[in-house]
C-alpha cells in the first residue's frame, strides 16, 4: 500500500465499512468473551427441556439436547471464526507466494505454476473440499487444509497479475540494478502493490470460508461434536424442521450475520482502497 493517508472522513462516510466493521467486531467480542456473555453451561444437557422456543432463561431457545442455544451459538463462533481466519491467512500466503514467483519469473515457472492453479480451479469447490476432508478425516485442522486447497488459487491469480505489471516498473529495475536478490525485490517492491487487492479478497474470503466450513460441518465432515458448531446444529435442525424451526433458523442467522459483516467490511475496504470504484 502506498503511503497514502486514509482520510477519516472517507472512512466514516463509507457506511458499509462502518456497519460491516461493527458487525465483525460484535462477532469477535462474542467469540472472545463467550464465557462472559453467556450464562448457561456449554455442555449441560437437559433432555426434559429439548427444543424449547425462545423464552425467559433461553433467549434463543434450546437445542435438540436441551442445551441453551445462545450459549451454543456464542461458543460456536469460535471454531467458525478461527477456521476461517486461519484458512484465509494460509490461502493468502500460499497464493501470494505462488503468484509472485509465477509473475516475476515468468517463462516455464509461470507456465507450470499456472497450470497447477488451473487444475485446482477446474475442481468443483465443494467436491474438492469434501474429498479432502474425507481423506484427512474430520476436525478443524483438516477442514482448514481443505479450505486452503480450495481458496489459494484466487490469490495466486490476483497477485500474479500485479507482479506482472509491477516487475517492469522503474523502481524494481533500480533495485535489481542495485544488486537486490529476487526474494528481497519480491517482498519489498512487488508485493506491496498487490497488498490492497489481497486484503479486500481476504476480507470477502472470510465470509466464504465461514459458509464453506459450516457447509462441511452440515454434511458431517467438520468440527466434531460436542464442540459447538453452527453447521452441526443446522444439520440437526433440518430433521426438526416441522417441530422446531428455530433449531435451523438460529444457527443459519448466525452464519448469515457473520458473512454479511465480512462482506460489508470487504466492500467498504474496496471503496476505500479503490477511490475510482463507483460501487459505493
Amino acid at each position, binding site marked *: 500500500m502506498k503511503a497514502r493517508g486514509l482520510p477519516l472522513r472517507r472512512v466514516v462516510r463509507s457506511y458499509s465499512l462502518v456497519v460491516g466493521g461493527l458487525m465483525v467486531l460484535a462477532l469477535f467480542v462474542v467469540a472472545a468473551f463467550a464465557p462472559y456473555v453467556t450464562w448457561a453451561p456449554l455442555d449441560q444437557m437437559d433432555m426434559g427441556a429439548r427444543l424449547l422456543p425462545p423464552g425467559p432463561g433461553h433467549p434463543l431457545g434450546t437445542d435438540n439436547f436441551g442445551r441453551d442455544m445462545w450459549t451454543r451459538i456464542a461458543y460456536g463462533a469460535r471454531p467458525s471464526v478461527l477456521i476461517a481466519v486461519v484458512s484465509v491467512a494460509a490461502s493468502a500466503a500460499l497464493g501470494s507466494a505462488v503468484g509472485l514467483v509465477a509473475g516475476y519469473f515468468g517463462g516455464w515457472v509461470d507456465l507450470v505454476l499456472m497450470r497447477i492453479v*488451473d487444475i485446482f480451479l*477446474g475442481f468443483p*469447490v465443494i467436491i474438492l473440499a469434501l474429498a479432502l476432508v*474425507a481423506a484427512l478425516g474430520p476436525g478443524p485442522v483438516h477442514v482448514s487444509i481443505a479450505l486452503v486447497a480450495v481458496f489459494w488459487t484466487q490469490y495466486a491469480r490476483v497477485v500474479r497479475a500485479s507482479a506482472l505489471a509491477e516487475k517492469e516498473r522503474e523502481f524494481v529495475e533500480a533495485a535489481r540494478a542495485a544488486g537486490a536478490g529476487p526474494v528481497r525485490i519480491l517482498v519489498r517492491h512487488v508485493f506491496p502493490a498487490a497488498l490492497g487487492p489481497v486484503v479486500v479478497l481476504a476480507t470477502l474470503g472470510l465470509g466464504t470460508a465461514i*459458509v464453506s466450513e459450516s457447509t462441511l460441518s452440515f*454434511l458431517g465432515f467438520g468440527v466434531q461434536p460436542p464442540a459447538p458448531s453452527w453447521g452441526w446444529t443446522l444439520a440437526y435442525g433440518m430433521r426438526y*424442521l416441522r417441530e422446531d424451526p428455530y433449531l435451523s433458523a438460529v444457527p443459519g442467522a448466525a452464519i448469515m450475520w457473520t458473512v454479511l459483516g465480512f*462482506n460489508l467490511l470487504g466492500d467498504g475496504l474496496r471503496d476505500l482502497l479503490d477511490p475510482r470504484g463507483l460501487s459505493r
Partner: protein
Amino acid sequence: MVPVMIGIAAIVFGLMQIVPGDPAVVLLGQDATPEAVAQLRHALGLDRPLTVQFFSYLGHALRGDLGESIFQHEPVAELVFGRLPATVELALGGLLVALVVGLPLGVLAAVRRGSLFDLLSMAIAQLGVSVPVFWLGIMLMLWFAVQLGWLPAIGRGAPVLSAVGLALAGRPEVLVDSLRHLILPSVTLGTYGAALTSRMVRSSLAETLVEDYVRTARAKGVPGWRVVYVHALRNALLPVVSVIGLQFGTLLGGAVVTETIFGWPGVGQLAVKAISQRDLPLVQGTVLVIALLFSFVNLAVDLVYAAIHPRIRYK
C-alpha cells in the same frame, strides 16, 4: 485442457487412495469375510499397483471410456450423462432467476442512483450475496413447502423439455408440475447470482451513463429509456457477463448443495454419493465431466462476450 484434466484425474486418484475405507467392504457389508473382500478387490482390480491402476484408467479415459461404477454396475459415462440434464436444468433455472431478478433491479438502481429504491435494492443484494445457499434452501423449503404447502419440498418433475412436449400435446399439468418442482431449487441457487448481477449491473451502468457517448446521445435528444437500454446497457453488460461466467463455478458448487437439500437427481448428488461410497471410477467420472462442463461454459462466456462486444466481434 488435456493436461489440466490429467492433473485433476491424478489428484482425485491420489485423494481416493488416502481416504480410509474400501469400496469392497462398503459393497459387501460389515460382516463380509476377509477372503470375500480380497476376492472382490481382485475382481475390481484394486489389488494392482497404483501406477498400473492410474495409467490404465487414464488410457481408457482418453479413449472416452470412464469405466464402470463399482456400486451401480453401470458405465460411469451413462450415469453421469444421465444425470447431467437435471443439473443443467437446475443451473439454467438458477441463471434465469439471476438474470430476471438481477438485471432489472440493477438497471433501476443505477438509473435512480441515490434513491430509496437504490438503497433498498442494494441492501437486499448485499443480503443475497451473504446468505448461505444451504440455509436459504432450508428456509424456503420450510416456508413455501412445509408451512404454506404451495410448492413441493423435494424431488424433480418430468424434464422440462419433455414436459413442454407433453404440454403441447394437451397435457399441461405435467409441465406445471415440473416447473413447480423447479422453482424453489432455482431460487435457492439463483439468489446469489441475482444479487451479484444487480450489483454489477448497477455499478457498471452507472459508470457508462456518465461516459461521453451517452451524454452525446442524450444531448442529441435520444429519449431517456433509449439511452439507458440501447446505448449504455449493452456496454454495461460486458463486465457482468464475464463475472457471471466466472461465477458459474460457484453456481455449480452451489448446485451440489442445492441438489442435496431438494433431492434433485443431478451430477452433484451423484458425486457426493460416490465419495461417500468410495466409488472411485464414479468420483473420477463426475469430477472430470463437471470440470469439462466448466471449460465449455468458459468458452460460451467468451462467445457471448464477443457477441455483445462490437470490437471483439469485428476483430
